[in-house]
């Protein structure tokens, strides 16, 4: 049984990578997650996202916008899955169009989505960096 916030995989960094070409959207996600106690990095296109991945090592989760110019989320996903350094990183896709969840991803968020959907998805993969003021003190068990 893992205590809430435990790191399950020591090779996994505590950072979430948000890849979205809309700066306002990427910043909004990063802002909310940061204040909920997570560490967040952002990238505003697919190429930048892959570069950030190389810097971050292994983020605990990638939130990937599907509809981006130049390099669509699908191509980023394919490159991730083909790279042995990154192929095991959980990826959740964000999209504004209703579609099936792409194979090999851990979740799909259809805009506009409720914030709790995002937080529950993130909580399943990432430990918090800090205790947030006002946050209920819980020791929720998860996993085995």
């Amino acid at each position: 049984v893992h205590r809430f916030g435990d790191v399950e995989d020591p090779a996994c960094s505590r950072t979430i990578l948000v890849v979205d070409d809309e700066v306002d959207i990427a910043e909004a996600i990063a802002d909310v997650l940061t204040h909920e106690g997570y560490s967040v990095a952002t990238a505003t296109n697919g190429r930048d996202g892959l570069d950030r991945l190389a810097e971050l090592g292994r983020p605990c989760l990638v939130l990937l916008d599907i509809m981006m110019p130049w390099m669509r989320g699908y191509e980023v996903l394919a490159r991730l899955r083909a790279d042995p350094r990154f192929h095991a990183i959980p990826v959740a896709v964000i999209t504004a169009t209703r579609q099936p969840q792409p194979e090999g991803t851990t979740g799909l968020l259809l805009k506009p989505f409720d914030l709790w959907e995002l937080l529950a998805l993130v909580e399943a993969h990432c430990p918090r960096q800090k205790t947030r003021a006002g946050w209920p003190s819980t020791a929720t068990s998860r996993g085995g």
Partner: protein
Amino acid sequence: MAFDRYESRRMILVVEGHDDLREALCVLLRGEGHLVAQASSGEKALAVLRLFGSVGLILLAWTLPGASGAEVLTVLRRRPDVARIPVIALFSRGLIPPLGQGPIPSAS
């Protein structure tokens, strides 16, 4: 399950152009246990509303860089998906329009 803790927490969107004021409001509201998103302009606020569907209240500064609070509110009220979100308009002291004279369209 994690969902239980989150579902009851509605998000408050704080739209304020002054960084210090916006941050102070966010700190205050987060301290009360609310989920808070922030935007420093009307355009950013509309982006946040395209992203999150669980906004329960908007605190909207009337004076903003770019689109004014009144313009943002007009756009909000024309969008069916967000038209019913309660909005509290934030005025600087001394700029509050006299009751019944400065129309605040559809603000709560």
